[in-house]
């Protein structure tokens, strides 16, 4: 049938693509800010011991220099562990253990959704004194976790369900990260941004190796990657506007992939070079929890999970990095969601003014990264620009802007 529509302008299609990736990032950040402001209203001085604080546990009485050195040590340990984990993941991928890795990944994401989701639900229940009984709670939690695992890893589900669960996983892990001590959090963010930059762009970086391995074998990698729904025109139901060519593999497969590419939002081709943080990160999270609760279980679980997680992460979790999916839709790794939300959540612990400033900075950084993505047509790390701007604006706001605004308000001058 004839379509008498005016042709869509560049702004429509490009703007819509950007909005489709900005919306989930913003929702994740908003949820983390809400959680932080509800649950952390009493400043908790207790520090969760986990792998991220293995080198140094911050206490309130240390001097600033001690705190800084301690935070630096923590971050270095964390980044080193993540690097090792990613290399192990590359090794696993090289040895073709994909099935095992996928199953293990499903299991550990079930643990993340079930246990961390359950914990946060319990916090909320206690906070609001919701009169729910344990049977109902267990049934709902079990359903939630199992369907989450299915949606993200195992089978085809409605796209909105998959996207929703990815945002929720990002929110849960980000909330856990905001429980770290303050100096450690900031130094960790900067360290992860630098690591991401190195791992994606350097030729010896583990993520780059992984991508090249995957491409040379022409394998699909299931990934914990948020893929925005591709923008479609009325007539063309399968091809979005944005160019998708970034590697020769996709070039060769473009024509045959047209109809099948859209069904591959989970098995997306390796267009996003990623670090294995997420996998490794989730491993850390679980380790931290386990080591707190059950020391005797932690030893076998750590080895077990590191492999699985790492395997999953390279395969499944393309974290900090962006690229164009095989369907041309923009993809953003889950680690980006997590670290953006950690930054904003930590800013929320200070004041809402810093939240607004950091949110705008992160969105600006994301826009810049998208522009660079369109320019260079290859996978790029999405963390560095946004984290740099976010951290910069946080400290500027906290130390300069706030004083100004408060003084103006107190003297009834402005605001």
């Amino acid at each position: 049938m004839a379509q008498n529509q005016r042709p869509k302008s560049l702004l429509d299609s490009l703007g819509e693509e950007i909005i489709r990736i900005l919306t989930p990032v913003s929702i994740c950040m908003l949820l983390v800010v809400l959680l932080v402001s509800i649950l952390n209203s009493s400043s908790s001085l207790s520090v969760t011991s986990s792998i991220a604080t293995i080198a140094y546990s911050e206490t309130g009485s240390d001097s600033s220099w001690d705190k800084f050195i301690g935070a630096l040590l923590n971050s270095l340990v964390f980044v080193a562990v993540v690097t090792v984990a990613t290399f192990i993941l590359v090794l696993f991928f090289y040895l073709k253990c994909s099935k095992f890795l996928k199953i293990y990944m499903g299991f550990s994401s079930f643990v993340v959704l079930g246990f961390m989701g359950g914990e946060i639900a319990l916090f909320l229940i206690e906070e609001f004194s919701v009169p729910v009984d344990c049977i109902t709670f267990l049934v709902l939690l079990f359903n939630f976790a199992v369907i989450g695992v299915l949606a993200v890893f195992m089978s085809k589900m409605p796209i909105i369900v998959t996207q929703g669960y990815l945002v929720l996983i990002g929110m849960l892990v980000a909330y856990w990260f905001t429980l770290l001590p303050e100096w450690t959090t900031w130094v960790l963010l900067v360290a992860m941004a630098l690591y991401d930059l190195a791992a994606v762009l350097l030729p010896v970086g583990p993520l780059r190796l992984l991508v090249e391995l995957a491409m040379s074998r022409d394998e699909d990698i299931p990934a914990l990657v948020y893929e925005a729904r591709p923008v479609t025109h009325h007539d063309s139901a399968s091809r979005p506007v944005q160019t998708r060519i970034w590697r020769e593999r996709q070039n060769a497969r473009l024509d045959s992939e047209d109809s099948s590419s859209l069904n591959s939002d989970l098995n997306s081709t390796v267009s996003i070079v990623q670090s294995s943080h997420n996998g490794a990160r989730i491993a850390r999270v679980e380790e931290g929890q386990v080591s707190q609760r059950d020391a005797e279980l932690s030893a076998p679980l750590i080895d077990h999970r590191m492999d699985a997680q790492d395997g999953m992460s390279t395969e499944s979790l393309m974290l900090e990095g962006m690229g164009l999916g095989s369907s041309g839709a923009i993809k953003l790794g889950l680690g980006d969601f997590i670290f953006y939300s950690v930054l904003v959540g930590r800013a929320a612990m200070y004041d809402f003014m810093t939240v607004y400033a950091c949110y705008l900075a992160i969105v600006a950084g994301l826009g810049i990264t998208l522009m660079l993505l369109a320019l260079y047509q290859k996978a790029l790390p999405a963390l560095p620009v946004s984290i740099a701007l976010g951290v910069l604006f946080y400290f500027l706001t906290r130390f300069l802007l706030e004083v100004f605004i408060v003084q103006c308000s107190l003297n009834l001058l402005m605001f």
Partner: protein
Amino acid sequence: MEASQSQASANAALNPHPNPNSNYTNNSNSILSSTPVWPTIDGPLGLSEEESLSYARRFYKFGYALLPFLWAVNCFYFWPVLRHSRSFPRLRPCDRRLLAPKSAPCALEYVVSSAIGFSVFSVILSSWALTFAIGGEHLFGSTWDQLVMYNVADRLGLTGWS
């Protein structure tokens, strides 16, 4: 950005019109211009006809493992099948001529069974939860305190990690 505009013109040439799997409703009724082509709610991004049968069956069977929400996902996912079968009453018994020649049930039956299962479950669960919440101590006495979640969490120390 020139790249995307040239892509747009290439779209028309390159795009296969999405009708390799014609839904049984499509050919039969030309009056309705909004007949769906795809059986899933995702449209062209979702499943094709052949795959949707196996997915519907899998969702239905796994829902019996204490996963009623899987039934809800099933209904949500195959919503076009549910919705448009109602407006075509002759298709409700699931016209088997057009599907596989075996006598296997078609996707519609699984989806309808999932819908029924989910509604039954939600009635049971909500009645129990509401009784628990509203009845409170009057109805249950001391067991209310034992069953309510925040006490259980305190007792088991579940929130001690932070």
